[in-house]
């Protein structure tokens, strides 16, 4: 049973991690495409048309990857976590269905118009299609984050004869962590997309330094990133305050605070040792933990000793540091880029951006690991334990399908990245 739960989690984790890579790009990229398309409509500059046509191809490919991996998800809710639907299906199900109804059809249908309809519909209708697709991707994020936030900080539900149902849908959707999580994810997507645009444009400029479209999109991506990353720092901080209020055990784990204390220190680095309940080789700043988490140097921070159930410390601790570390690097690069690109385009900077093409993926995945592993041992906080939701699919079936998924995903991810590099290397002309 233990093993089956572990395999079910590993498989679902693999699928959802693979899936989230693509929406993370498409939500942000859809809005960037709206800008490209409108600029072409206004200026009739062929460079913008080329830019639009190149990036709509990237978008279509990324979107397709998101669709096919998303279909896998819709099945795995039932196959891997039957207990989930049995227990909270009356709340989770409708939110998922609303995503399909209000977002998926809209995106899929108008993407067809966006891709193949430039000469078949009016310019205005084509611009509208781009906006509708971008709107659809955002609506999709709205529903899925409403559900995820509800699993983190459930409100608005009631028990009727032992069955969990929604008492107030508004309270279910607008649960306490939802606004923060949604904003955090939308910004993450915008940043990821702008680094993809900047990175692939830099790659093109390394091959063809005089490509005017690539020079434009590089600057465009860098500027967007330079604005969005600082915003993300602020939103991330607010999200942290919210988590401390509603999920203190998660915060204690991600900061590796073992004992409840006033004026808690901030651990910059170290090796959490769950057996001995301490952090080995820790580098700490006194009182900084309380200052950052509660905005008060003497505030009391609940440590892991205060919680009967808390998540595994090391994975959350490390994921959090990867996310923040990546964010800092991205901030430095985006601002350095903004300053330097005003005057010149040195090759080392192009290499730096090319190297950071998929940096948003690293930060986003690490962030999701913080929040999802940080919720353990609960699947829905206080309501359903992960172990109670697993199905009775045999280890052999899980193993066989897992092998299939790993091979397929590996091949797909490789092909995706090769094709993206190849497409951008050829440029928009």
């Amino acid at each position, binding site marked *: 049973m233990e093993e089956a739960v572990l395999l079910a989690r590993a498989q679902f984790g693999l699928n959802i991690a693979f899936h989230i890579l693509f929406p993370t790009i498409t939500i942000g990229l859809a809005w960037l495409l709206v800008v490209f398309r409108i600029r072409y409509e206004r200026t009739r500059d062929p460079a913008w048309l080329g830019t639009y046509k190149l990036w709509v191809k990237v978008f279509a490919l990324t979107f397709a990857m998101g669709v096919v991996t998303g279909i896998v998800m819709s099945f795995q809710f039932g196959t891997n976590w039957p207990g989930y639907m049995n227990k909270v299906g009356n709340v989770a199900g409708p939110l998922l269905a609303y995503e399909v109804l209000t977002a998926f059809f809209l995106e899929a249908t108008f993407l067809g118009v966006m891709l193949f309809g430039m000469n078949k519909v009016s310019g205005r209708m084509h611009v509208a299609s781009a906006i509708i697709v971008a709107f659809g991707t955002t609506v999709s994020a709205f529903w899925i984050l409403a559900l995820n936030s509800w699993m983190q900080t459930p409100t608005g539900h009631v028990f009727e004869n032992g069955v969990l149902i929604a008492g107030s849908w508004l309270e279910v959707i607008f649960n306490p962590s939802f606004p923060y999580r949604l904003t955090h994810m939308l910004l993450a997507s915008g940043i990821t997309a702008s680094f993809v645009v900047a990175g692939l444009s830099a790659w093109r400029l390394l091959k063809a330094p005089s490509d005017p479209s690539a020079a434009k999109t590089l600057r465009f991506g860098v500027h967007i990133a330079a604005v969005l990353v600082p915003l993300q720092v602020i939103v991330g901080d607010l999200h942290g305050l919210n988590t401390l209020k509603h999920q203190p055990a998660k915060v204690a784990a991600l900061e590796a605070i073992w004992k409840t204390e006033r004026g808690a220190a901030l651990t910059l680095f170290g090796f959490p040792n769950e057996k001995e309940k301490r952090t080995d080789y820790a580098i700490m700043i006194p009182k900084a933990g309380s200052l950052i988490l509660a905005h008060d140097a003497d505030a009391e921070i609940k440590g892991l000793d205060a919680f009967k159930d808390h998540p595994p410390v090391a994975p959350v601790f490390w994921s959090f540091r990867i996310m923040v570390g990546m964010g800092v690097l991205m901030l430095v690069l985006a601002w350095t880029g903004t300053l330097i690109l005003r005057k010149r385009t040195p090759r080392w900077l192009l290499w730096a951006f090319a190297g950071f093409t998929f940096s948003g993926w690293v930060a986003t995945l690490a962030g999701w690991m913080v929040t999802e592993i940080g919720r353990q041992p609960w699947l829905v906080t206080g309501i359903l334990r992960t172990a109670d939701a697993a199905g009775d699919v045999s280890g052999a079936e899980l193993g*066989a399908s897992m092998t299939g998924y790993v091979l397929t995903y590996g091949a797909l991810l490789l092909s995706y990245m090769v094709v993206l590099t190849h497409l951008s290397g050829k440029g928009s002309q």
Partner: protein
Amino acid sequence: MIDLPIIFTVLMGAAILAYVVLDGYDLGVGMLMPAASRDEQNRMVASIGPFWDANETWLVLGIGLLLVAFPAAHGEILGALYLPVAAMLVGLMLRGVAFELRIKAEGWHRELWNWLFWAGSTLASLAQGFMLGRYITGFAPGIGYWLFALVVAGGLCGGYVLLGATWLVHRTDGPLQTKAIAWAKWGLLWVALGVALVSLGTPLVSETVREKWFDFPRTLALMVLPLSTLMVWIWIWISLGRSDWKPFAGAVAIYVLAFLGLAYSLFPFVIIDRMTIWDAAAHPSALVFMLVGTTIVLPFIIGYTFYAYRVFRGKVTGGDPYS
């Protein structure tokens, strides 16, 4: 009092039927790829380009409605079909990605993606038919039931080939259309064999279905279904080569009739002999919330789907698909 589970059964059935017909034609086109020349392959893919994403979304809606409206059945059905579901998903992933990548690839790369597009389409179709076959018998154990599922798998592939071929008759012209007419005839023969085997086999493998169909005088009224299927079949055969749109319309009609027959056989079970739609239904609070959304949004979805088919009407030509 409105009976919510019945409403959601109709909605879910409609979504699954829409999926089977819509993704059916593009899966069928995928399976026909090896029979065409390179230039024809490009036109075949171009004919489904603007639609396939949205077509597959109907599967997500159908499964989503199963998940939302009948959560108890969702876990049971998908648990029992674990491996064919995984096979179908791998197939759908391969073809979806191959579809995008083949446009961007050149030389042997394109050949490789073409091949994967075919393989993914075929794998997904076989898996769907197999799932249907297992589902009809309520996942009964025993070699005979597995063989029955294999027969259904073959039959559904034939049906998709028929849909794909008649879609191409509708959307292409010249030598490709001539080829498509021949493919459609093979598809028709294949479907005739498949439908006959499945119709005769289902009452044999399920007592519940047998009793529902062979109960005079109701049986006489029910004969409307097989008789109209036969008439539509003949109508398709005659109109092939004479009309561009009639064969596709006929193929869709065959699916609708087969679906009605299946729905009659199974109702009111969501898992035959084990779980009725009322046993499996979610709490009314969830169903009402869903119904409100569906009633408001579904007309829009149908509306803009028609709009998209209008924008991309007419014969497909070669050339750059992105212009």
